[in-house]
């Protein structure tokens, strides 16, 4: 799928795997029943008189329309109940990540002795169950990574939980599944599963301080970043920018996208998003900043791109 994994039928984890198996079983069941009904209609119209006479009995109606479905549905129900239990069970050794849905981005907090704040991109180690704690800051959202498992709504005032496990390393696309207004269609994110040791190294780097800008241009960019008020919404750890309204930009350049998974992260796309964000992601909450001269804009972008 063009390098994007977002399919229920291509499971990469045990939770999604169980559901995919169930789905195939249900398709088989459904095809069988549909075939039965079509055959019955055909026989009722064109069948031999003896068959039609049987079909026309009330007892047949009860058998085919009631008894058979009762048996089939009881079996299905039992499977469903078992699977529901299997999917909602919890173990202790799971990793915990808190994700808060907001119009129209994701705040991500990695649980630990000192919680680590990030946004719009989630990384998990391969093979380890992860418990997601899900919240909503404004309206209802829904957290869904099809290749790894089912979805659970994020509801203001409530906390929901979801356990996912990635069995293979890869980039899985997740998307908000509950209509949340405006650019709901563009509220997606990437979930990156990586080998344990890589994950640990990455997390350590994420927890670390943001390196200071090195070149002149980057330093000028940082000054502009602060003077233009970017820091009232965005935070960059270690600077005066400590806003909580928009995504945390610490280590921003190590993420893969700009505009909450709308465009791949390049200097050019970043530049476009700052000036023209309402065209790229109509309705998003960040005002367009067209106040900079082109030199200023370049400086600002190079500063942001230096936030490795």
């Amino acid at each position, binding site marked *: 799928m063009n390098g994007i994994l977002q399919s229920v039928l291509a499971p990469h984890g045990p939770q999604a795997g169980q559901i995919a198996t169930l789905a195939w079983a249900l398709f088989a069941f459904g095809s069988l029943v549909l075939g039965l009904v079509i055959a019955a209609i055909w026989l009722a119209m064109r069948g031999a008189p003896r068959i039609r006479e049987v079909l026309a009995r009330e007892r047949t109606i009860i058998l085919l329309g009631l008894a058979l479905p009762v048996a089939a549905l009881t079996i299905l129900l039992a499977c469903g109940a078992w699977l529901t239990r299997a999917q909602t069970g919890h173990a202790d050794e799971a990793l915990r990540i808190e994700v808060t849905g907001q119009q129209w981005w994701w705040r991500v907090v990695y649980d630990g002795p000192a919680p680590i704040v990030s946004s719009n991109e989630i990384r998990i180690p391969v093979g380890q169950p992860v418990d997601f704690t899900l919240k909503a800051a404004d309206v209802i959202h829904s957290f869904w990574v099809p290749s790894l498992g089912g979805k659970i709504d994020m509801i203001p005032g409530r906390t929901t939980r979801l356990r996912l496990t990635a069995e293979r390393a890869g980039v899985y696309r997740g998307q908000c599944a509950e209509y949340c207004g405006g650019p709901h269609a563009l509220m997606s994110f990437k979930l990156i599963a990586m080998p344990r040791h890589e994950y640990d190294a990455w997390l350590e780097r994420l927890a670390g301080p943001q390196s200071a800008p090195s070149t002149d241009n980057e330093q000028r960019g940082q000054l502009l970043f602060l003077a*233009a*008020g970017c820091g009232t919404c965005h935070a960059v750890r270690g600077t005066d920018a400590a*806003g909580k*309204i928009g995504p945390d930009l610490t280590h921003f350049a190590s993420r893969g996208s700009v505009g909450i998974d709308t465009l791949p992260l390049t200097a050019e796309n970043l530049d476009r998003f700052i000036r023209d964000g309402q065209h790229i992601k109509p309705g998003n909450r960040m*005002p367009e*900043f067209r*106040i900079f001269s082109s030199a200023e804009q370049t400086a600002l972008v190079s500063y942001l791109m230096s936030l490795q």
Partner: protein
Amino acid sequence: MRIDPPVRIRFILLAALAALFLGSLFVWSGVYSVAASRGHFAVTEWLLTFGMRNSVKTHALGIDAPPLDNSDLVTLGAAHFQSGCAYCHGAPGIPISPIAQAMLPPPPDLATNMPPWRDRELFWIIKHGIKYTAMPAWPVQQRDDEVWALVAFLRRLPSLDAAQYRDLALGGLRVPPQSGESLATSETTARAIGACARCHGAGGARPASSLVPVLHGQRAEFIVASLEAFTSAQRASGIMQPVARALTGDDFRRVADYYAALQAPHAPEEPTDTSAIERGRDLAEQGDPDARIPACAGCHGEDALKTYPRLAGQNLPYMLNRLRLWKRGLAPGTATETIMAPIARELSERQIEDVAAYYASGGPSAGASR
């Protein structure tokens, strides 16, 4: 005496066609004179006036007038009347220009003969203008607040004598008597500053109307950017756009430097609601992250970009008006408005009042002294 219906219908149709043809012929021939010097027939005159009056009355029906007995509104309206209206409509002590008098219909002399319109009707006329007369529409259709200022002034106008009018419209400014030579040979250079000071004050004087922003001590970059935005009609104001257009690019910089160098004038002592100011301070310094409102200080503080305005000591009614305009949906036109408008839209009415009170009371500087 029964007429066969089809015959009657055919007759009417033919008559209509004939009338249409003759009418076209008349227009095409150019026999009719469009001269303004000729005037209308009395009956035409009556019909046009009658139609105009009723049109205004009907269209103004759904408009609710705000309270107009407000000296800020009157003063602002007066200043604009002087530059935008007096040429045609006259003013106490200022006769109508003979050129304007030769229009058809001639504009009414509002100083002496104010027609008996209701507030809402005046508003409608000023906002939309009147077809087939020289009465123009308000240059910016989104700024009803400015139109109301003019209506407020027109309500005061009949009671003014020439001196009172001068005080109101010129903000107490005195134009020094000029020598015959300078009158004869040069343009007056004091004009630009004089035009600004009428509303915005100058030197140690605050703006005459508190609906007008204090420019003293603003960054020159901000003032220039604003003037450019008015000139290019990006920023919506029927009052400022014509004023800014009258200046040249060089004037912008000079005016801006002049105001930037001025000391902020002393704010008038007004009863203050300290709890509102404290709430405003919180909002200005911390924002309201739950409501997605960033801290004001991030962009309006001392360290911020020079193209952003400083708010400390700004006029309270001006800030309230501006924030409410955005909240009600005024479309942002400039680059900085594009940033501010969505934030203002998220503010509650209470927050608007609080934060405006905070900055009007002096903002961070006042907090330090308290």
